């Protein structure tokens, strides 16, 4: 089970239009990435809500197909 960085980015951008997404492969195994996401839509949201929005964008793959995605989110 693994994902490729472009697929992760595509899913995130589809759900968070206009976001600036930087994905880093942490282990080269397709299972451990970090993502920094800057999106105006996060404005006023707690960190938990911001991360939940990203998990929702991944449509259930988080914790299954994608083992680890370290997230850093902010609105600007």
């Amino acid at each position, binding site marked *: 089970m693994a994902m490729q960085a472009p697929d992760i980015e595509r899913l995130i951008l589809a759900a968070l239009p206009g976001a600036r997404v930087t994905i880093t492969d942490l282990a080269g195994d397709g299972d451990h990435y970090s993502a920094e996401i800057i999106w105006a839509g996060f404005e006023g949201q707690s*960190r*938990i809500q911001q*991360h*939940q929005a990203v998990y929702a964008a991944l449509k259930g793959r*988080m*914790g299954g197909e994608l083992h*680890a995605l370290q997230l850093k989110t902010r609105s600007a």
Partner: protein
Amino acid sequence: MTDQVTAPINDWLKSEVGSNDVVLFMKGTPQFPQCGFSSTVVQVLDYLGVPFASHNVLESDELRSGIKDFSNWPTVPQLYVKGEFVGGCDIIREMFEAGELRDLFANKGVQVNAA
């Protein structure tokens, strides 16, 4: 404890997060964490000197999936303080590095060691 566990996992989770000031759902135990992310949160709590209850989600599939539905959060570890979900490893580490975690514990009346 046994009859509570046969009740829907949500009732048991509600009572656990409600009856412990600080409770960590993790993979493994504080002494033997079985996941780097779980281990990181344990280290942060130990560093701050915060006593906490913990549950090993690897011991029960029902718990492992139930906790994710309970908080609408797809991964473990998960940290709860005074009944409130605070976050997983990323958020706990980010809050810790920003000094926000120590403030959170202090504001919620949870014992934390001196800075």
